C-alpha cells in the first residue's frame, strides 16, 4: 500500500518532468523563460558542488530550527500560563488575535529598524510566524484534554508537574503536531520571502538569498535550482519527519484518524 503510493508519486513526478522537457523541445518559449532540464540540473549540481548552495541551505535550516525551538518553548509557556490563569488567558488571547493574522513580511520594514538587518530580524520574523499558530493549537490541545485523564492522574497520586508531563503533554500531542506543521510551513515561507525581499542577513545568506542572487543576475536555471531545493526540503520534512513522527505517535495510538 505504502509502496504503491510511493510508486505513484514517482510516476507523476516523471510525468511532470517529461512534460517540462517536451515543452522545452517544442521551442515555443525562449530558453530564457523555459530553460531545459539539463541546464537546470547543471545549475543545481554546480551550485551544490561549489558549496554555495549547500552552505546557504544549512544556514536557512539552522536559523529555522533555532526559530522553531524558541517559538516552541515560548508557546508552551504561554499556553500553560493561559491554561492555568484567567488573566494570562485573556492577555494571551488578545495578543494572538492581534498578531496571528499579521504576515511577518508586513512587519519587516519595522523589524529592520528595530533589529537591524541581521540574523535577529529574520529570527524575529520566523518566531512571529510560528509562535501564534503554535499557541493557538496548544491552547485548543490543552482545553480539549478529557477531564477523565486528569482525574485518573490525580487519583493515582500524581503531582502537578507529573500530570503536566505524563498526561497533558501526550494528550495534547495531536494538536501540538498540527501546530508544529503549520509553524514549519509558515516559517519556511517567511524565511524564504524575508531573505528574498531583504537580502542576505550574514555573509553567507540563506536559500532565499540564493534565489534572489540568481534572479538579479538573471540566471533562470539557478532560480529553478533553488526552487527545486525548496520543493525537496518541503517533501522531506513533510514525508519523512512529520509523517514519521505521526506514525510513531498519534496514528499508532489511534488519536488521529
Amino acid at each position, binding site marked *: 500500500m505504502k509502496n504503491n503510493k510511493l510508486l505513484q508519486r514517482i510516476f507523476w513526478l516523471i510525468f511532470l518532468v517529461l512534460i517540462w522537457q517536451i515543452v522545452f523541445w517544442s521551442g515555443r518559449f525562449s530558453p530564457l523563460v523555459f530553460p531545459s532540464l539539463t541546464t537546470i540540473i547543471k545549475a543545481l549540481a554546480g551550485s551544490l558542488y561549489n558549496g554555495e548552495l549547500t552552505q546557504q541551505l544549512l544556514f536557512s535550516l539552522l536559523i529555522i530550527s533555532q526559530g522553531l525551538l524558541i517559538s516552541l518553548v515560548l508557546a508552551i509557556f504561554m499556553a500553560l500560563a493561559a491554561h492555568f490563569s484567567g488573566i494570562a488567558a485573556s492577555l494571551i488571547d488578545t495578543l494572538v488575535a492581534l498578531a496571528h493574522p499579521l504576515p511577518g513580511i508586513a512587519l519587516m520594514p519595522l523589524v529592520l529598524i528595530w533589529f537591524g538587518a541581521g540574523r535577529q530580524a529574520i529570527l524575529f520574523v520566523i518566531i512571529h510566524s510560528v509562535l501564534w499558530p503554535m499557541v493557538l493549537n496548544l491552547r485548543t490541545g490543552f482545553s480539549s484534554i*478529557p477531564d*477523565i*485523564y486528569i*482525574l*485518573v492522574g*490525580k*487519583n*493515582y*497520586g*500524581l503531582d502537578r508537574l*507529573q500530570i503536566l508531563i*505524563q*498526561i497533558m503533554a*501526550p*494528550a495534547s*500531542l495531536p494538536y501540538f503536531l498540527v501546530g508544529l506543521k503549520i509553524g514549519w510551513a509558515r516559517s519556511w515561507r517567511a524565511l524564504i520571502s524575508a531573505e528574498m525581499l531583504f537580502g542576505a542577513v550574514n555573509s553567507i545568506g540563506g536559500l532565499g538569498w540564493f534565489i534572489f542572487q540568481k534572479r538579479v543576475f538573471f540566471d533562470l536555471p539557478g532560480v529553478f535550482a533553488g526552487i527545486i531545493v525548496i520543493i525537496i526540503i518541503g517533501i522531506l520534512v513533510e514525508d519523512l519527519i512529520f509523517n514519521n513522527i505521526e506514525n510513531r*505517535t498519534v496514528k*499508532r*495510538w*489511534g*488519536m488521529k484518524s
Partner: protein
Amino acid sequence: MMDYIAIKNIYKSYQQSDERRVVLENINFSIEKRELVALLGPSGCGKTTLLKIIAGFIETDTGGLYKNGERLSGISSNRIMVFQEFKQLFPWKTVLDNVIFALEAKNIAKNPAEREEMARYFLERVELTDFFDYFPYQLSGGMKQRVALARTLAADPEIMLMDEPFGSLDSQTRKNLQDLLIDIWQEAQKTIIFVTHDIEEAIVLADRIVVMDKNPGRIKKIINNNLERPRNRAGIEFGELYETITSV
C-alpha cells in the same frame, strides 16, 4: 465499635440554571472492611456524585467521610475509582504500560523489570494475556474495562470505587466480568463500593445493597444480602430478594 468507613450526614446541591438543586440529601451509611457494597438507584439519583465525593473529587455541602473515626478529605490513591467510561485508559500507552503506570505512580516494586512482571500478573488475572502490546483503541469495551480493573488492582488501593464499570457492556460480557470481579475481590480482600442501576448485578455482587431514590437523591433502604456464594441467578432466594428490592 467504630465503623471502618462511615458516611455521615452528606448533603450536596448543584446550581442548575437559576435554582439550587439538592442532589444528595442526608446520606448516612457505613461500610465494613472487605465488604462489597452496592449503591443501587435510578439514573440521576446521585450515585456518581456520591462516589466522587467518596473519592474526594468533589466537596460536600455538609457532612463527610470518616475512616476509623477520622475525617478523610481530598483525593487519595487509597481510594481509586474505576469509571463507567471506556476512555479512562491512556490512549498513548499500551495495555501493559497502562497498568505499569499505576505501579509507577504508587512507586510499587523496585525496578522496571519487576513492575513489568507485576503488570503482566494483573493482566493475566483479568484474563487479558494476549493483549499486552495493544493500544486501547484496538480493544473492545469489555477488554478496556478489564484493563481498568487491572490498573486499579495494581495500584493496590484499600477501597475500590466502581461506577457502573460494566454498564455499557452486553449481558454475556457483563456476567463474565461480574464473576471475575467476585473472584478478584475474594482473593485480594478489598473493600469495594459498586455503583449500579441493575438490580440483578447488585444482588450477584454485593454483601449489602444501598437502595437510593431520586429528587432529591436519598437512601431508601439498606438491604443485607446473605445469599450463599457463588450465587445462582436462577435460584428462588435470588428471585425473592429481587422482589424485595423492587418493592422498596
